[in-house]
């Protein structure tokens, strides 16, 4: 190691020397950076930021990394690297590294919608056949579906996310809504309007808006992509169907009635939560379960008045399809330690670790058995509803062109005030088709 540190200092005399130093230190750095030189291999795990950050004691992925390093008994050690905050930025960074065959990335935490694109480009290592059962045992179905590409398991479910309808009990009561029964978007909009409160939604031009649109369409019985897995020119879209029009009608009504707050076109999860945390405007909110842990941090005075229910129905009488999210763990096909990486993935996704992670970060486990745990039931009073929603959830379209599909839908549906059931779904279909043929820009 000392040789590595000293080498650049030896020649610093001439101009050419300086160039040589720059080149040599680059080489030496890469030589020193190689973990293969001594000791167990270091597996680098790119994680999405969670409540634990990079701190190995806060119950986040950083803690799982440390516990699995300790449990490996010298077989490997895991070091973590933090990805950016937003899902789009995470995808960009992962994609760049994967495309560059970066051996410095062994494992990665992926949003379910990235899996198809990465797998189609052969960037992901297939799950070893003897590990597949262990990694998917008791996992909720949408999480397994999202980890599968062309009948092959290419990732392991780690945690699974879904949205709930959060509401103020007093507001629902005043509006005459029976929240023990499934409610529809129409009922919510009318209730919010009559009580002069807001419905927190995500309608900024970003992935969260796509989550909403997809849930609305799936809830009406349609699918954005009818034949997942098909190549670009073969893809069929269900946007302009009756279901797509129903979905657009909901967005149009929310925008027209002004119940999504003053700046609907720029609302993301945080802005929607802020609307809900503001006593004067709070009524309803569709958002992920992290809300439950976030509300006390915002010092809301009405925490006992907060209720939760299943995601609203797009069409009355048709069971809602809550959004699906979460994290799948993948192994880089360019990694030089794939075997150890899959061992590490197995360790990270054990039910015990999923429970630890759920308690630490509030992110719901993908493994159904975790929800039977008394500790989980106590800390998450809505855990039964989360599990039910996860099982009923509809993933966003599984297609290798997901990024294009999502961007095109977001663009045509933005701003939400311009959404028209008669034209917007057809415009979205036309745009995606043209983009995938290479005839339009995004």
């Amino acid at each position, binding site marked *: 190691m000392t040789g590595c540190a000293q080498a650049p200092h030896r020649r610093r005399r001439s101009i050419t020397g300086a160039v040589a130093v720059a080149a040599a230190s680059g080489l030496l750095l890469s030589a020193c950076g190689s973990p293969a030189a001594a000791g167990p291999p270091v597996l680098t795990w790119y994680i999405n930021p969670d409540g634990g950050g990079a701190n190995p004691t806060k119950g986040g992925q950083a803690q799982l990394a440390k516990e699995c390093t300790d449990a490996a008994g010298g077989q490997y050690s895991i070091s973590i690297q933090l990805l950016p905050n937003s899902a789009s930025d995470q995808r960009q960074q992962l*994609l760049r590294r994967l495309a560059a065959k970066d051996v410095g990335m062994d494992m990665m935490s992926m949003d379910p919608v990235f899996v198809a*694109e990465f797998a*189609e480009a052969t960037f992901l290592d297939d799950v070893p056949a003897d590990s597949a059962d262990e990694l998917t045992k008791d996992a909720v179905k949408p999480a397994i579906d999202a980890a599968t590409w062309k009948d092959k398991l290419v990732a392991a479910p780690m945690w699974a996310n879904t949205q709930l309808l959060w509401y103020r009990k007093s507001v629902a009561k005043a509006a005459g809504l029976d929240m023990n029964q499934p409610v529809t978007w129409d009922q919510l909009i009318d209730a919010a309007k009559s009580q002069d409160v807001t419905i927190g939604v995500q309608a900024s*031009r970003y992935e969260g808006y796509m989550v909403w649109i997809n849930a609305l369409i799936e809830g009406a019985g349609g699918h954005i992509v009818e034949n997942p897995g098909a190549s670009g020119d073969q893809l069929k879209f269900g946007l302009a169907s009756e279901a797509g029009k129903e979905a657009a009608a909901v967005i149009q009504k929310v925008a027209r009635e002004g119940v999504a707050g003053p700046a609907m*076109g*720029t609302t993301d999860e945080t802005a929607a939560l*802020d609307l809900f945390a503001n006593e004067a405007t709070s009524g309803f909110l569709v958002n992920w379960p992290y809300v439950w842990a976030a509300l006390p941090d915002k010092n809301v005075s009405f925490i006992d008045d907060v209720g939760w229910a299943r995601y609203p129905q797009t069409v009355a009488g048709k069971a809602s399809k809550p959004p699906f999210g979460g994290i799948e763990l993948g192994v880089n096909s360019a990694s030089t330690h794939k075997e150890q990486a899959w061992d590490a993935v197995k360790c990270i996704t054990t039910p015990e670790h999923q429970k630890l992670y759920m308690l630490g970060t509030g992110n719901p486990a993908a493994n159904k058995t975790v929800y039977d745990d008394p500790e989980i039931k106590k800390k998450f009073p809505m855990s039964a509803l989360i599990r039910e929603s996860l099982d009923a959830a509809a993933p966003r379209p599984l297609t290798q062109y997901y990024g294009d599909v999502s*961007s095109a839908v977001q663009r045509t549906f933005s701003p939400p005030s311009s959404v028209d059931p008669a034209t917007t779904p057809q415009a979205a279909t036309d745009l995606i088709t043209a983009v995938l043929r*290479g005839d339009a*820009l995004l």
Partner: protein
Amino acid sequence: MSVTQTDPPAQASSKKKKKQVMTDRAKAERSLGWRLAGPAFVVMVAVTGYPILQAIWNSFFNYRLTDPTNKKFTFLNNYIVALSDGVFWQATWVTVLITIITVAVELVLGFIIALVMHKIVIPRRSLRTIVLIPYSIITVVSAFSWFYAFRTDTGYINQWFAWLPGIDASTDWFGGFWGSILVICLSEIWKTTPFMSLLLLAGLAQVDASMEEAAEVDGATWWQRLTRVILPNMKAAIMVALLFRTLDAFRIFDNIFIMTGGANGTSSLSLLTYNQAIDRVEIGMGSALAVLLFLFVLVIAAAFVRGFKVDLTGGRN
């Protein structure tokens, strides 16, 4: 550079004998110049020329990074798609609009600040440092601070200007095209006016004070001195400042990326290129757009240099 500056007579003599045979000394100096500047020249060509050529080459392909096996040579198809797509022209229009608004406002504001800085003697250095602060802030950081200031939840602008008609606590600046453009332009103007004013200050310093005095003695008003004496004498500096800022403004990216992400039709050419090349990993189309952006910049530079007769070495003679 060192050759011409340390030895001006040599430069003059080489100019005179341009058509004639060069003297040994001129030859020696020329070769010394090449030996001194050569390595830098080679490095420059390598680091700028190679990527440019690579981008031009890539732009002829339908090439997606996640689908390398289907890479197809399509020659000019990417350019045809881009130039026939309304999105491209919308982005061009937004870019031109932002360029014109920001450069025009910056020129006036920057000139006023330059005049003030030129006249003030006592805290001259501190003043110049203070004026430069916005320019020293990273664009992304300044974009975020303007973004947060104008948002309905974290912002304070709505509170400050609630007395104006049409503005109240719920005014959503980023909900439409013109509101977004206004904030984007404001942050850009705030950040780069100092640069403009410094360039103009350098131009002001070149104006001979005796000419101003002569005009004053002749009874010229302040306005006449400004328009007849000062401005004509610093035309070169103004043009250089305009050229630099126009090229800079035309590549606007950070503010839009942070504030709207291109929503409401506010995407600029740089952002559009970024979306194709980095987000969609459509290397071919991204390269084609980058080449088009490069051509636009070339045209602007050529228009300034030829059309307005900007002498980039102006002020040296």
